[in-house]
């Protein structure tokens, strides 16, 4: 456990653990710092926001019941210490959440949005409901620009681009050839009017024949990607299998899995050096969930396209950790894990010694997953969303709050 008295965090990290200083006194040094931070506490007031229950499944999955006390109990793992509050939400907390909500709503309605202000608010947790988190995350990932007037144009363009990419890359080669041919024929028809004479044969080059095994064959790529698709499918069956949003045989969960499959497959095709790495499903899940449960109907309908762009943006910050070739480079995962060990040594040498020498439990045994998946497999879902509010609002990138770069 990190010891409070001698905890040394870089200033930047201090910014990311809101309420950290205040809690020092309140807890009287009896709790580990990570759990004592106020940051997850912010989940509780949001439970009051049942008036915003527009997407039934959203709250079902989050385990929100009729009372706030039940909601807290419904958290699946790591229940927080009670602190004599018996699950009650203090009036102050409710007021604070309401203030945050109105602050964000006000900011999002501005012609020119102050991104710094959004970061400051989001850092302390975006209130659930009303699509605030979806808009905040899109802004924080720079998917939406601060100029509100641009949003419609930007979103339309990005969504069209995604549809085009999907058409080009996710259809089987023959289907794509057909689509292209149909497009050409219809273009010719519209140019020449009624065409007399024999029907044209679709031209297939030798390299594009299904039985061709040449490296350049479109089918070769296609078969390779079928393997990847199978891997992705297997992992999607195992993604948050306790949540109706992701799991089960409902058409709703099937649609969500289909969207995730498209996004991951497209990412793999566009990034052949990285391809698909297990765990990407976990990183994508919170994004798709938040965007799909946006109360704005158009946004929810286009959640797949928006999630793709935001997933790419999010990974651009940490994609090196997924790349096997970079494992031993200064930007690879092993180097990041060494920085974590160094951070631990500085803050709690006793624990570091115990792990390093007595038990020989290296950081890669316990922290590899924390870092590559941005903590998305370590907590219950509501907490993941809350933690990501802070990670995404960090001015130095999502990895920094976990492992400061220049530490």
């Amino acid at each position, binding site marked *: 456990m990190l010891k409070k008295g001698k905890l040394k965090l870089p200033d930047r990290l201090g910014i990311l653990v809101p309420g950290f200083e205040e809690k020092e006194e309140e807890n009287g040094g009896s709790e580990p710092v990570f759990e004592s931070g106020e940051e997850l506490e912010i989940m509780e007031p949001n439970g009051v926001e049942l008036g915003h229950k527009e997407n039934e499944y959203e709250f079902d999955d989050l385990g929100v019941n009729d009372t706030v006390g039940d909601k807290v109990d419904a958290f699946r793992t790591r229940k927080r210490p009670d602190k004599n509050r018996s699950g009650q939400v203090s009036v102050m907390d409710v007021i604070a959440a309401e203030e945050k909500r109105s602050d964000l709503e006000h900011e999002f309605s501005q012609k020119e949005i102050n991104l710094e202000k959004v970061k400051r608010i989001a850092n302390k947790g975006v209130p659930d409901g009303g699509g605030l988190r979806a808009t905040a995350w899109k802004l924080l990932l720079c998917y939406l620009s601060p100029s509100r007037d641009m949003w419609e144009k930007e979103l339309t363009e990005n969504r069209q681009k995604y549809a085009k990419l999907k058409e080009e890359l996710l259809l089987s080669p023959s289907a794509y050839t057909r689509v292209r041919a149909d497009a050409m024929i219809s273009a010719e028809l519209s140019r020449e009017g009624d065409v007399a004479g024999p029907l044209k044969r679709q031209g297939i080059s030798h390299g594009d024949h299904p039985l061709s095994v040449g490296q350049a064959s479109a089918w070769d790529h296609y078969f390779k990607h079928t393997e990847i698709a199978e*891997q992705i499918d297997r992992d999607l069956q*195992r993604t948050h299998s306790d949540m109706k949003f992701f799991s089960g045989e409902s058409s709703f969960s099937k649609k969500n899995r289909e969207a995730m499959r498209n996004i991951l497959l497209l990412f793999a095709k566009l990034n052949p050096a990285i391809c698909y790495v297990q765990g990407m499903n976990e990183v994508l899940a919170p994004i798709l969930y938040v965007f799909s449960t946006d109360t704005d109907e158009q946004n929810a309908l286009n959640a797949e396209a928006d999630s793709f762009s935001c997933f790419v943006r999010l990974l651009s910050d940490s994609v090196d950790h997924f790349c*096997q070739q970079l494992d031993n480079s200064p930007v690879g995962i*092993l180097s990041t894990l060494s920085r974590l060990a160094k951070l631990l040594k500085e803050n709690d040498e006793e624990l570091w010694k115990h792990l390093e020498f007595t038990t020989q439990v290296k950081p890669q045994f316990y922290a590899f*997953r924390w870092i590559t998946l941005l903590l998305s497999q370590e907590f219950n879902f509501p907490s993941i969303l809350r933690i990501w509010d802070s990670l995404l609002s960090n001015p130095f990138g999502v990895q920094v709050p976990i492992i400061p770069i220049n530490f």
Partner: protein
Amino acid sequence: MGSSSGQSSGSYDLSFKILLIGDSGVGKSSLLVSFISSSVEDLAPTIGVDFKIKQLTVGGKRLKLTIWDTAGQERFRTLTSSYYRNAQGIILVYDVTRRETFTNLSDVWTKEVDLYSTNQDCVKMLVGNKVDKDSERDVTREEGMALAEEHGWTFLECSAKTRENVVQCFEELALKIMKVPSLLEEGSTAVKRNILKQKPEHLPASSGGCCS
């Protein structure tokens, strides 16, 4: 990530390190969780490596098994290679409903073992998982037995879901390890080393064992 189950008081006679390997999705983690906690829930894919500790009594000896569960995907192999070091037992798992997971044992996994395992006498065991899906079976029991025989491995078929043969996998492997003098010696050395390191005040209170 790692967790222990059963007694953690350090009162055991032998300590063994066991490694689970095989393709992604064959049920390595499920097999481990089914053995440790008797639960059969759906598990998220393993990222990197995970480990669990289980104490049980086999052949009159109290054993502490540290079982390392590795990720199956190729990307993680360079990272997981170091886990082979000093393992006394390796369980090679395949899915009886997916033939490629079986052929990959010969094509990929035995090579990994040869390359990274530092222990010549290390006991290997072949385990065909998911026998509960009998209608989807793609690899026969005979084929499994033949492959095991070819390499001199122990062989079992099991189901992490129904728990059929799950405990037997680990018990049988432990028994085999105990029959190899060099491994037995290593197991006892690990215990001595551990006892020397433990300071009395750090000994946790002993809790009820779950399997002995």
